[in-house]
C-alpha cells in the first residue's frame, strides 16, 4: 500500500514538474535538487488534493519538499478524512 502510494506520488509530482518518476527518490528534495519553487509547490498540492481527494492545510504546503513528506501528508489527511 505504502509502496504503491509512494509510486503514485512520484508519478504525480514528476508529471507536475516535468520530470521522469525515476528522478525522484523518496528523500529527493525537489525544491533544492529539482528547482521546485513556491509556485510549483502549489501546483503539486492542487494535484495531490485532486488525485487523493484530500485537503492539505495551508501550512503543510511549504513542508512538502520530498516524496516522503508528500506521502506522510497524504496519509495523515486520509486518516483524518471522515469515513
Amino acid at each position, binding site marked *: 500500500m505504502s509502496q504503491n502510494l509512494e509510486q503514485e506520488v512520484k508519478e504525480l509530482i514528476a508529471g507536475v514538474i516535468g520530470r521522469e518518476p525515476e528522478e525522484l527518490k523518496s528523500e529527493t528534495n525537489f525544491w533544492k535538487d529539482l528547482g521546485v*519553487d*513556491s509556485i510549483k509547490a*502549489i501546483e503539486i498540492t*492542487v494535484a495531490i488534493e485532486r488525485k487523493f481527494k484530500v485537503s492539505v492545510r*495551508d501550512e503543510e*504546503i511549504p513542508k512538502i519538499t520530498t516524496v516522503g513528506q508528500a506521502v506522510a501528508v497524504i496519509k495523515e489527511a486520509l486518516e483524518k478524512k471522515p469515513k
Partner: protein
Amino acid sequence: MSSRTRIAITGLGPISSIGIGKDDFWSGLSAGKPNVKKEEVFIDGEPWDSFFLHKVEDFNIHDFGIDEAKLNDIREWKEGEEITDLNYLLAAVKLALDDAGIDYSAGDSGLGLVLAHENIGLMPFGLKISNLAYEILSGKKKLSKKDFFNNLYKSFLKSGYDIQTFADLFHVARVFNIHNYSLFINNACASGLYAFEAGAEIIRNGQAKAVVVAAADNPEIYKYLWFRDLGIYSKSGLVRPFCKDSDGLVFGDGGAGIVLEDMASAKKRRAKIYAEYLGGGFDLEGWKITVPQIGNDSYVKAINKAFKNSKTREADIDLLVPHGVGSQPIDYYEAKAIIATFGNNPKKPLISALKPYVGHNLGSSALLESLVMLLCLNNDTVFPALNYDNPDPKFNIMLNKEKKQVKLKAAMKICCAFAGFNAAAVFRRVS
C-alpha cells in the same frame, strides 16, 4: 423600470506614508520616493523584532479639525487609549468629506457609511491579553481559575467589545452625523473593492444620496509576525512586484476615505467628479486562506463579472492597477489572470503596481490604490514602476516603466486577497 443610478466619486481622503491629504499625497507620488523605515519593536526596553514598513509620520488626529468634544468622547470610551486605526478612519473620512464639499454639521448629514478593515482592534486587545497573561504566567499574580477568568473579563470588556466592528461604525458615524445605512466590511485585502460596491448599492437602493467609504490599517508587530511566519514578508524592505528577485510584501500604513454620490445630486451641486464607478465583479475562490490556487480561474471570473456589470470590454481599459504584492505565487496567480484577460505582454492597458509607493495597506490597500488610480485618471498620468529592475519574463506582463502623460478614459483595479476574495472594479472619467 428606472435606469440604474449612476455613481460619482466626489471626495478623496488619503493618509499614507508619502502624504496626508490629496495634494500632499499627489506630490509624494510624483516625487516617487517611498518612506520606508525599519520599525524596531521593544518590550520593556528589550529588543523584540524589527520589520520594514512604509511609515506614516507626523500624524496627529487633532490636526484635522474634527469636533474635539466627540474625539474626547471616544477617548473616554477607550479609557484614554489612542487607537491609531480608528484615528486613521476618522481622519480619512474627514478629508474625503471636506474634499467633496459635503456639509455634515447638521443633525443628519444624509450620508451613509461603509468602513473596511482586516483586523480592527485586534492589536490593543492582543497586547492587553499578553500583558495580563505575562503578569500571571511569570508569577507576579496568583489567581484561582475562577478569579483568572473574572479578571480577564473585566480587563478586556471594553477592548473586547471594540474588536466587534459595530463600535467603530458607531464612533465614526457619530463624529460626522451619519444616521443612514451603515456597514462594516472585511474581505481581507479586497475589502476596499467590496466597500465600493456596497457603497454604490446603498445609493442605488435609495438608502442615502452619498456614502463615505473608508478603510485603514496601522501595521503592528503581531501582523508582521504572522506574515513573516507565512514566508511572505520582505527582508529587503523593497516591494518588487512581478520581479525575479521579489522577496515578499512590506506593510503600508494609513488609509483612505472616498465619497460616492448619486451622479445627479453631484452634478446638481456642481461637485468635482473624479470619476464614475461603473461596477465591480467578485468571485470567492474558496480554496485556502493564505494561498491562491494556481490554475483556478476564479480571478478571471471576477474580472469578467466586472466587465459585465460595468458594461465595458477589455479594450476600454487604459490603466490597470493589480494587487502586485511582490510574492512569487501570488504575483504568478495574478499575472495568469491578467494575461488570460488582456493577452500576453499586453500593450494596453498600462499596468501600474502601486505597493512600491505606499506599501501593502492590507484591508485598506485596494481602497488606497484605487484612490491613486482615480488621481491618475484625473491627471492623465501613469507613474513608473519602482524597484522594477529585474522583471521576471515568466509572468508575461510588463509594468509601466516611465512616468507617462497619456489620455486616460477608464481604469480597472483588481485584487486577489487571502481566502480567495477576488475582485475587480471599473471606473470611468466623466467629461
